[in-house]
């Protein structure tokens, strides 16, 4: 019998683990006692309606928010109290929901800001050009970022995240605001990066997009883990369908 991707990945080591992680903003419970494990090489999606706590989890993984409870482990090392830049140096990289790019600089200059911390001067230019080629946006390298389309800015930000030599990439709604062609390109890009061995955890609302690329998914609802499994299992789960439809 053919094994599912999730079954295949159970033999692999977890690269990221969230153990009993919770986050309260005053009396508001944003995330409650979440346990999550992402295996090396996985392409895992966090889905859930608005307010489910997806972006809060991303911010806790990156060190923007400190969890109220629980711990976060990256490659078996506790990173709960580490600063964002230390997590990036360990191999965690993020593309934010709203493109986090410097609009008044060129695409190349943006990449340089990211790459300077991780590559020596001699190899940096080659690496940046390699990333532009991978993203197929070499023609944009001299353009001012504010002049690029939303999709091009998203891809540039993925490039910037890749310039940080990540072992794991977090993508917060990589297809948000994109047209069908741009969404297809983004799906291909994410699959291509995962095929090269990069572990990817992403957030998205678009179930078609998720079904197209994710190997596994975790559903969040009101700050709690609601379901977990392969994308097909999740898509056919009646309770998940209900919360998405607001039942």
């Amino acid at each position, binding site marked *: 019998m053919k094994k599912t991707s999730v079954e295949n990945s159970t033999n692999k080591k977890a690269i990221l683990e969230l153990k009993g992680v919770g986050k309260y903003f005053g009396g508001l419970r944003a995330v409650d006692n979440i346990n999550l494990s992402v295996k090396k090489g996985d392409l895992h999606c966090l889905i859930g309606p608005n307010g489910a706590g997806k972006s809060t989890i991303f911010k806790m993984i*990156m060190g*923007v928010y400190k969890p109220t409870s629980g711990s976060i482990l990256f490659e078996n090392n506790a990173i709960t109290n580490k*600063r*964002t*830049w230390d997590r*990036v*140096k360990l191999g965690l*990289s*993020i593309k*934010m929901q709203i493109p*986090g*790019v*410097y609009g*008044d600089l060129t695409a190349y200059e943006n990449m*340089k*800001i*990211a790459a*300077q*911390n*991780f590559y020596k001067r001699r190899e940096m230019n080659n690496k940046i050009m390699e990333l532009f080629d991978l993203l197929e946006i070499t023609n944009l390298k001299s353009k*001012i970022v*504010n*002049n690029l389309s939303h999709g091009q800015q998203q891809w540039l930000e993925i490039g*910037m*995240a890749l*310039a*940080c030599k990540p072992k794991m990439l977090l993508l917060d709604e990589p297809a948000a605001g994109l047209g069908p062609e741009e969404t297809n390109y983004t799906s291909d890009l994410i699959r291509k990066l995962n095929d090269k061995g990069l572990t990817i955890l992403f957030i998205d609302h678009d179930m078609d997009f998720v079904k197209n690329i994710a190997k596994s998914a975790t559903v969040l609802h009101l700050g709690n883990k609601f379901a977990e499994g392969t994308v097909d299992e999740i898509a056919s789960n009646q309770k998940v369908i209900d919360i998405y439809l607001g039942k």
Partner: protein
Amino acid sequence: MSLSSLMNQFINDFSFLILAAIGLAVIFGMMKIINLAHGEFIMLGAYITTLSAQAGVPLIISIVFGAIGVGIMGYLIDRLIICRLYGRTLDSVVVTWGISMVIQQGMLIIFGPSLQGVSTPLGSVSFAGSTYSVYRILLFAISIGALFLLYLIFMKTKFGLYSRATMQNQEIARSMGVNTNRIYSMTFSIGAAFAGLTGGLYAPTMAISPTFGTGFLMQSFVTVIVGGANPLIGTSLSGGVLGIVNSILDTTWGTFFGEIGLLICAILVIRLLPLGFSGVVEKWFVRKRRM
């Protein structure tokens, strides 16, 4: 009013305005911290320089000591106090005002109301019927050198790139692995070091007392207000324009009218160009790059 006396006055005013403002401009422009302890940083640079020179250290090395000493102190003040005020511009005014009082009163208690100064070195030269102080000409050259150094630090180094990235959007910079806390501390330290350098450079020309920095405060704030947030473009342009205004008024009607002229310039710029000279230049550059 002869051209040579006007030139002499401009050399003095330009260097004074640039050197008085450069440290303040770095801290305000890059960190949005309004440092009311700027005058005290200048005063500390003057004290370190004077005490070193009195201990037998050559003046030029004493001035470097002044800059480095105040730079280190700036780093410590940032780590201990200012780091809690990033993004809180108004709070920083109150806190740095408190720091200024502590430093000023501390120096008064330790060293008394005045300190014996060092004499102005290098003598003077005559040119076209006017006598110029060589040290004042050197200060003019150093003020241009300081602007060039600022350009090199913030435009040509890895630190400068990170610093500009952090000031534009610290969240993106952090997610690119930039230790933004260190960048802020280094920037504050560089601003303080420039203030210390100014104190050291002017120590041989003025009476040394705990209120030494007060004489720089009005000019430094006016230069930063007129120049705008970009420490490099703003300081150089406003130093040039205000230097011309001040030297003409000063030479014609005296120091009082020179200072009134500076304040009128500040009022006009706040009214007509709220982002200062550098805001206008940056807008022009952005528009040009987008075309």
